[in-house]
């Protein structure tokens, strides 16, 4: 019974990843692409690893899987944030003001780009 649930969860994860890849081809701007691709990664990893935990039952093997899940969930979004930030500061921030200062100014002005 537990295995069937696991296989269903893994299947759901794969379906979401396929839809996500379709999304990447739909969006052309860089920031939309990075949004969609980070979604694919986190959704894919959560569902597939949870599905595998159900498939393998609860033993040492699935404990390591959960450790991997925790690490990837911690580092994944952080990594895409840093890429998006360096892209934003590199392309837009540098032209007007210096990178770091532009963020401080932007906080005061609060204008939506």
């Amino acid at each position, binding site marked *: 019974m537990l295995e069937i649930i696991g296989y269903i969860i893994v299947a759901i994860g794969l379906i979401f990843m396929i839809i996500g890849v379709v999304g990447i081809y739909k969006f052309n701007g*860089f920031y939309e692409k990075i949004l969609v*691709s980070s979604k694919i*990664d986190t959704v894919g990893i959560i569902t*597939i690893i949870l599905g595998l935990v159900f498939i393998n039952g609860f033993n*040492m093997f699935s404990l*390591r899987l959960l450790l*991997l899940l925790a690490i990837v969930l911690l580092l994944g979004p952080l*990594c895409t944030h840093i890429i998006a930030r360096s892209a934003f500061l590199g392309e837009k921030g540098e032209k007007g003001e210096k990178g770091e200062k532009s963020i401080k100014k932007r906080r005061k002005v609060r204008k939506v780009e």
Partner: protein
Amino acid sequence: MLYTILIVLVLLFLSTIKNLKGSSVWDYLLGINLISTKIIIIIVLFATEMQLDYIIDFAIIYALTGFIGTIFVATFLLNHDKSNQKEEET
């Protein structure tokens, strides 16, 4: 389980072809980040297929090094212009 590995492999190539053709440097960085997370999923699926415990440790190490690598490249891309400008200013 093997079919899921094949599907994820196809997803890997599909999602990175568009990124690696991208215009700016950050598209390549995004493509590499996508590749590394997909490979983690493939390693995990392979480990459950073969029921081997120690392969998950490889996935953990690969995840750590992959992410930290892209973090450093991203921060380098941000600062390497400024370092030249400082030399010009002084």
